């Protein structure tokens, strides 16, 4: 098989051919892994490092042994590229501790979901990561440990799963204690802003960054029809100033005066990721070239590249080569005739995505509250301004109407048949947004909408939720 990639870290040296595209179980991957040549296992390393400790191509069982029990219940894309992706993603905790060991600065970027890591990763020897993403950990581990730790610090159950990040800071074992916390807040969710505030007890050095509100018109008027470009430009200017503070603080930490060219290169690297993700979205949503689960992991990778932008880019190139090949051969990993749904979240429980696909639906569009991480930046602009400009696409800094428009646009483009909105009980924006988004979609598209809250970590999809999903898909089928 050809594992092409622009970084040159993949090659055609090993004897491996992807089987016919399919979603396979945990155990089936173990059987497949027996056929993966040792040469390939030796081939992939993180941090562009040839040391044996930086290998990461392992079957899902390896990570299940270390606690990722949820993997046993999922179905995975059976391509080598997908296996490689899972290996790199699941290896992140180890990788961050390695980063510290090899002398890199580890920066916790919190709350903005996609922008600040572009700046941090422009600094030599610095690694950005999102403690926010720890919210998956209780699901993947099927464990309440992090939620319980957060509860001991004052954040109980009726709030966003992102509270797991507070538990992780308290436990000191999910990532190294960061050299700096860059906490973005402002027009963001309360839950995470509250987490950031309490994290300050564990982090001696916190830089607060303001995310401005994207002021939009909410009701029809002449003023609205004219748009508000002046407001948007003001917000970009404001945010650029905030990012200048990030640069100043990073320069002090790294002992390195960054050049504009280094920042431009950082933007180009991030854009490479964003463009790859855009193409993968297209191939997945249009041609079912990847499954929803892998695509979700790909989208969230745009936040911080799983702490290794070089290797993550190579993984994406590998995935794209796989997806392109499948599309060219009209091969699909899920049935192309499956029910077409758009998924709107903050949380898409991996088990739910698996369940929905098992039941004959496929995801043809997403709004995972990370639009800002998917927006390609304008490389002709000064770098900080380009980052700030792309951040104006952020899902959470504007209105529910804007999020709904993104959903409606995707639904139109891909002839979606239904929309699933999965929220979190007590999540501050979920409580206010879900019904509005649902109303807008129903009103303008006439599409059925299923709205539910994702249950706490569990080893199965609850029976009530199964019934609701089954009934929803039945409704969609009946409308064909």
């Amino acid at each position, binding site marked *: 098989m050809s594992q092409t990639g622009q970084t040159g870290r993949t090659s055609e040296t090993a004897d491996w051919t992807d089987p016919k595209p399919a979603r396979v179980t945990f155990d089936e991957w173990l059987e497949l892994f027996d056929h993966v040549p040792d040469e390939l296992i030796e081939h992939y390393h993180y941090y562009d490092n040839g040391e044996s400790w930086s290998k990461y191509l392992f079957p899902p069982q390896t990570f299940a042994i270390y606690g990722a029990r949820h993997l046993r219940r999922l179905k995975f894309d059976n391509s080598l590229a997908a296996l490689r992706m899972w290996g790199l993603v699941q290896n992140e905790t180890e990788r961050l501790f390695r980063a510290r060991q090899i002398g890199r600065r580890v920066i916790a970027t919190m709350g903005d979901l996609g922008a600040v890591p572009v700046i941090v990763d422009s600094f030599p020897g610095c690694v950005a990561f999102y403690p926010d993403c720890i919210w998956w950990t209780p699901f993947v581990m099927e464990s309440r440990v992090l939620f319980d730790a957060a509860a001991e610090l004052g954040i109980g159950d009726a709030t966003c799963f992102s509270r797991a990040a507070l538990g992780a800071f308290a436990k000191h074992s999910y990532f190294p204690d960061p050299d700096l916390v860059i906490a973005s807040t402002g027009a963001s969710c*309360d839950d995470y802003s509250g987490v950031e505030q309490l994290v300050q007890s564990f982090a001696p050095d916190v830089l607060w960054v303001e995310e401005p509100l994207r002021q939009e018109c909410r009701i029809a008027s002449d003023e609205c029809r004219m748009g508000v470009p002046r407001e948007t430009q003001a917000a970009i200017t404001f945010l650029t100033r905030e990012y200048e503070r990030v640069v100043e603080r990073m320069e002090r930490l790294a002992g390195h005066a960054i050049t504009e060219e280094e920042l431009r290169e950082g933007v180009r690297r991030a854009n490479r990721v964003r463009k790859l993700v855009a193409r993968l979205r297209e191939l997945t949503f249009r041609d079912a070239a990847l499954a929803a689960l892998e695509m979700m992991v790909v989208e969230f990778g745009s936040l911080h590249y799983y702490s290794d932008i070089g290797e993550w880019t190579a993984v994406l190139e590998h995935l794209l080569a796989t997806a392109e090949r499948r599309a060219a051969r009209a091969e699909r990993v899920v049935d192309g005739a499956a029910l077409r749904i758009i998924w709107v979240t903050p949380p898409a429980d991996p088990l739910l995505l698996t369940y929905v696909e098992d039941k004959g639906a496929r995801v043809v569009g997403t709004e995972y509250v990370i639009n800002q991480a998917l927006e390609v930046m304008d490389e002709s602009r000064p770098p900080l301004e380009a980052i700030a400009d792309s951040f104006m696409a952020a899902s959470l800094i504007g209105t529910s109407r804007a999020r709904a428009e993104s959903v409606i646009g995707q639904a139109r483009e891909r002839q979606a048949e239904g929309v699933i909105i999965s929220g979190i009980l007590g999540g501050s924006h979920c*409580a206010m947004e879900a*019904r509005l988004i649902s109303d807008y979609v129903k009103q303008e598209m006439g599409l059925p909408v299923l709205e539910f809250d994702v249950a706490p970590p569990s080893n199965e999809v609850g029976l009530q939720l199964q019934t609701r999903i089954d009934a929803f898909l039945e409704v969609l089928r009946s409308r064909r």
Partner: protein
Amino acid sequence: MALIPRATFEQIRQQRLEEIAAERKQGRKVVGYFCIYAPVEVVQAAGATPVRLMRGGQAAEERGERYLRADACSFCNACMGNFELEPFYKQVDAVVAVNTCDMMRRLPESIERHFGTPVYQLYLPRTSESLPHRVAEFRRQLDELANRLARLTGAALSAERLDLEIAAFNRLRDVLRQVSDTRRVSSPVLSGSTMLDLEATAWLLGPVKAVSLIDEVLRIIAARPRSNAHRPRLMLGGSMLAEDDRWLLKMVEEKADTVTDILCTGTRWFSDDVPAEGAPLDRLARFYYGRPCMHRRPNTEMYKYAQRMAREFRVEGLVYKTLLYCDPYAFEVRRLQEALGIPTLCLDTDYSIENREQVRTRVEAFVETL
């Protein structure tokens, strides 16, 4: 005997409602607002009548759940319900909403969608460090708000008029401080529940009439003898206390004195004056940007404020009431308790009335431990 009978406040409210309705018939606009960051001076200077929207209530909360999910905070749900139920809310021509907590930031969209009432959203940076570009952005927001209000009322907003309104509201803040400070003494005459009534009435009446009312209250307090009995001195904190939360204060005051608070519907509205130096909108920008609140990041100033109030009013315990799903306040309970180092009673409830006797048991048990 109550310092001022409840019926008196009700009568004042009713009169004010009739006045406002009559003024509206003459073309005057009514602008509702929610929190301490709303620049009432600008509203008044634009020729509109500012009315603080601070009603809760079980019926309103239940009605609001038609529009918002049940896990939206109780105040947001009640607010939606009150646009249908509460006479003052029905008088509102426009709303000034400030970008504070996430739910209050998102509430305007639902108000506009379901009731067609325009909402002017004022963006206040959540970050509390008053860096020049942040204050400048807030100043720009105030300017934009002034323009919008002027368009609403059709009246130009002059610097001179704004200066006058700043002075008038500073005077109101001053008398509210004076009346609140009467609770510094042992066995104060003024109860927390009457203080809540006074504040709510003051925000309804506007500065001139409110100052007159409070001056009268100050005279009554001065003439009223104090009890010699010592009762525990409590401070109130937590999410906003709506007028409909009076029952809790009355319940607490059966056993203790509520001598101060750290509420946005209490002392934090009047703890400081708009500064005297500078152009009016600059002064307002500096003033409002610097107001402490739990939702600001970092919220260090809020903690300093709580510690100062607890110290100056010789507080022995804190009653901290949060609304269900009010994250900015609920998350801070434990930290605040540690920071103040005083016994704390935490109550996390919505506006339902079914749990009141349970709350009574907890309040009584708490006071017994002091």
